């Protein structure tokens, strides 16, 4: 039986991996053609007063003089060889430009993720278990405020408070741990509030179920109730929202990075789209999609382990 389960799990994993690859291909293709619709980079890159001939030559240099389908095949060919192309603007391999920026964005996103999961799940649990008592009365307004604060406003206000008024934290740029605090808090505030709300909702929903009443009537205390009975049942919605927040953190860091002049991927993204730097945009999209798909895959696998009733394992393998 155990071997059968393992085989099913392996089959499931294989199916999902295949689907993930298809998703990755879908993203890449969609972005490739969307970019080609968005305008001619040669026009933008050409210096002031360039003649039509100059622009045509530039187009040839960039490999844009052939048909879109030809470009697409060239692109896929490069992709299969791990070549994401050269940046039109910075004349460096897109991959190396990106990898210079990755550590900064990862630092920021990780710090924000830890902050938001710890505070979000903690606050959500506390609120649900103390419905109507002081922990909820104190935390709920905080959560509501956190959720209503747009990241860029939070960021500006934090800068106003801690950098302009108190002068204790740097306002912009990257320089060690202290410079991470404001951007991470800015980025985490919305996610933490969202996670707290979802956690609270999920726990409250479960508290209405029969098994909770049964456990309570058997004398289970709150701690036991949470650990033994609730944790597993609320883990699915929490996992769902955390997985979505991971994508948000990685993607949504664009605004935060702009405010704090953080040298991460967000800035590079805006620059590359502004400059119609096709290879760079494609590389960033592929990378971001890859990260997201991996997170998603892990989440889906975790679902099946956490809640056997979501019998995706058998079903997915069967399809």
């Amino acid at each position, binding site marked *: 039986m155990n071997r059968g389960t393992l085989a099913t799990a392996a089959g499931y994993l294989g199916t999902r991996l295949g*689907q*993930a690859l*298809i*998703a990755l291909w*879908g*993203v890449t293709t*969609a*972005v490739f053609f*969307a*970019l080609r619709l*968005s305008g001619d980079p040669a026009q933008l890159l050409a210096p002031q007063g360039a003649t039509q001939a100059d622009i045509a030559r530039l187009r040839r240099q960039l490999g844009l003089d052939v048909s879109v389908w030809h470009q697409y095949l060239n692109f896929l060919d490069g992709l299969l060889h791990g070549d994401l192309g050269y940046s039109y603007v910075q004349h460096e391999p897109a991959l190396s430009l990106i990898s210079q920026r990755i550590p900064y964005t990862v630092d920021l996103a990780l710090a924000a993720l830890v902050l938001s999961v710890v505070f979000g799940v903690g606050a959500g649990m506390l609120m649900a278990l103390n*419905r109507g008592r002081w922990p909820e009365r104190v935390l709920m307004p905080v959560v*509501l*405020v956190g*959720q*209503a*604060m*747009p990241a*860029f*406003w939070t960021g*500006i206000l934090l*800068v*106003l408070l801690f950098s*302009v008024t108190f002068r204790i934290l740097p306002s912009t740029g990257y320089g060690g741990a202290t410079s991470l605090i404001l951007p991470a808090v800015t980025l985490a505030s*919305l996610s933490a509030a*969202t996670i707290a*709300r979802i956690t609270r*909702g999920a726990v*409250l*929903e479960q*508290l*209405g*179920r029969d098994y909770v009443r049964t456990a309570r009537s058997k004398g289970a205390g709150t701690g036991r109730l949470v650990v033994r009975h609730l944790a597993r049942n609320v883990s*699915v*919605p929490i996992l*769902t929202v955390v997985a979505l927040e991971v*994508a*948000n953190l*990685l*993607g*949504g860091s*664009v*605004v935060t990075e702009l*405010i704090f002049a953080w040298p991460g991927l967000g800035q590079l*993204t*805006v620059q590359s*789209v502004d400059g*119609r730097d096709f290879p760079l*945009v494609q590389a960033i*999209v592929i990378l*971001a*999609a890859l990260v*997201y*798909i991996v997170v*998603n895959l892990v989440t889906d696998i975790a*679902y099946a382990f956490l*809640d056997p*009733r979501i019998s*995706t394992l058998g079903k997915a393998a069967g*399809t």
Partner: protein
Amino acid sequence: MSGATTTAAGAGTAPAAPVPAAEPRVRSGRRRGLIPAAVVALYVLVALCAPLISPFDPDHADLVARLSGPFASAHGHFHLLGTDALGRDVLSRAFYGSRVSIAVAAATVVVSGAFGVFVGVLAGWYRGWVGVVVMRVADIALSVPFFLLAILVVAVLGPSLVNVVICLALVRWPRYTRIAYASVLETRERGFVRGAVAVGAPGRWIVTRHVLPEVLPLAVVVATLELGLMVVFEASLSFIGLGVQPPTASWGSMLSDGQSYVATAWWLVTFPGLALFGLVLAVNLLGDAVRDRLDPKRSVPKRPFRRRGPGRPGRAPGWLRPGASGTAPSPGGPPGPAAPTHPSQEA
């Protein structure tokens, strides 16, 4: 397109169903939603009446009066909330900014929610290749970071109000789809759905009577979270210069302009931010109240032993009643989505 109408019809029946179950909390829920509703209504009113109540033309630059603080009077013009770097009245611009925020957020939530729930329920109910295709497309849409997709869409289509809505809806529908899908997957394994399947209920009936009532509260909660978020996202897009284009006023672009003067002109980042914050907070609180009324399980912890005479399962649904035509889907069937579970609760 028929999908949207199906979802809308489901949304219409859901609020009516759980209400009888929630007597003690309804009143407090209603009162709790009153103030946020009033605030949202006020914002909508301001948005509608912006041309009437704005003291100045929002785009009129008065360079002599530039960067004057709140309550400042410059050559006979009184600026309650001060002026920006071009001497434009902050209050008037904030009034006009509400139009953009409200229109974009509402349109986005309706479009993405209706579409997202519909395809999510389809995917969860039919599973198989429908489920795979829908969820893979959702994966693809989700796996592009929001701002990247936003920037791409705006770059391709050009920045405008409609394009911002398109772009946000394009990014946000998978949220509803994933929640709906997960909820349907869970619901379809539960006793009352299996029971309904076992007694031969038609799929559409099960979905509208048993599955949608489980999905919609979640979807509405998502939608309320989203409504506030969409206000924020529109502002974010305008903040990075991809939303509404200048000189049209938007809170996001006002904040972006004001950021350069953060150390000297605090009012430029404070008032548009407050306007934004107030609207989002009110929308979120209103959403909470709505959620309390929609969630059928909410009252259960308070009154776990709800009395309902044993052996009185309510009237049989249309498709079961002999002589009733199968096309009338819900002529007063069970009083709520929780009804089929009552026997087990009382056992």
